[in-house]
């Protein structure tokens, strides 16, 4: 029971670690996901092929395998000395971006084709059409699936703990190795995760309602 109070600094650090890696990966996943979704609906065939390959490859690869590649292949060949945080962010962000991409693409498909046709008829380029006309109208449809994706990302971030990142899972392992009662540790860790995931779903619900009023 007292394991929390006795190790408050560790728990706090773990919580902040999970928060940081989740937030950083979420931003990366969102930026990459929207970009790749743009590729996938682009009129330029090589971009479309790249987008399809990106999604197929990353979405179908086990996340742990991506972590192994990120930590044992990437630093060896490309960027020696990259921090574990950046590597974990890269693995989680790229993995999640494939899911974000598909959610965004499904949102794009819900916007009537006439909207894009009207924009193109005015002389807007593909990028302008996507950015100013299609994506803003796709946002509302994309919010609910994005919320699920980011909650999954939060929980997936535990894998980073096994790769020399300090976060909740890592802390729980550390404490249970020291012999503290595993039940209580898990309870506190679970609650900490719930705080993050509830915040995400709450924020997205708010966003959804806000966008509803705007129309």
């Amino acid at each position, binding site marked *: 029971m007292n394991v929390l109070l006795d190790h408050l600094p560790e728990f706090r650090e773990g919580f902040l670690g999970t928060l940081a890696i989740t937030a950083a990966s979420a931003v990366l996943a969102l930026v990459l996901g929207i970009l790749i979704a743009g590729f996938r609906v682009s009129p330029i065939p090589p971009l479309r092929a790249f987008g399809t390959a990106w999604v197929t490859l990353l979405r179908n690869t086990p996340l742990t395998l991506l972590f192994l590649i990120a930590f044992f292949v990437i630093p060896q060949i490309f960027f020696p000395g990259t921090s574990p945080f950046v590597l974990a962010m890269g693995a989680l962000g790229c993995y999640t971006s494939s899911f974000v991409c598909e959610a965004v693409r499904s949102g794009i498909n819900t916007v009537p084709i006439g909207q894009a046709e*009207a924009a193109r*008829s005015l*002389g807007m380029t593909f990028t302008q059409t996507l950015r100013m006309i299609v994506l803003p109208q796709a946002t509302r449809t994309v919010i609910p699936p994005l919320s699920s994706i980011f909650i999954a990302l939060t929980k997936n971030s535990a894998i980073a703990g096994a790769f020399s990142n300090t976060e909740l899972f890592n802390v729980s392992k550390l404490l249970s190795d020291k012999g503290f009662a595993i039940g209580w540790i898990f309870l506190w860790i679970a609650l900490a995760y719930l705080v993050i995931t509830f915040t995400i779903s709450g924020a997205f619900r708010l966003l959804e309602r806000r966008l509803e009023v705007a129309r």
Partner: protein
Amino acid sequence: MSEVSVTKDATPDALVALSGVNKHFGALHVLQDIDLTIARGEVVVVIGPSGSGKSTLCRTINRLETIDDGSITIDGKPLPQEGKELARLRADVGMVFQSFNLFAHKTVLENVMLGQLKVRKTDKKAAEDKARKLLDRVGVGTQADKYPAQLSGGQQQRVAIARALAMDPKVMLFDEPTSALDPEMINEVLEVMQQLARDGMTMVVVTHEMGFARSAANRVVFMADGRIVEEAEPDQFFNNPRSDRAKDFLSKILHH
């Protein structure tokens, strides 16, 4: 040799020229050897039964539909491939759709300003002035701050016309602009188009409104089964159609 030069000389002021245009939708040969020239300031009304390829023809002119072969030139320039060049050309070709296609997340005013700001790079003040002037001209000036969904169909379509006009197009394409409207709203849209025609705008109008064709068109193009069957002045076409296909079509729509 001399014949070729004659046909070219016959259309010295051609703004839109289609020659030998073919298009297939799968097995369906939707446009068959279309030759059509539209002179500057001319109002051409395209009519014909459903599925005759009228809308497709209209949409090929700004390359919303690609063609399989043949050529389309606008103001002497052939339609380029998808890209910046095509975008530039499309800015000079106004398009009005059957389903209005106003940007649902933008106000009426923003709809009319957007193209000016992002494509023409007009400054904001000038764009707004022009947008308000155009909205007044089509009679929806008081609705400027509303969203499209808050307007009636007829109002939306007039906004769509204003949006296209804001780009100072060389030619305006109308793809069945009144087909999605309640009967009582058709006239308010047609009046705007009549005015536009009187002002000398070059127009290609795909429509089922025979009254408009009679009163505003310089030329009627009758299409059936992917071909241009007959081209004539409206009086000649409606009173004295030459082809059996056109006679049949007119007898079905005019007498009831």
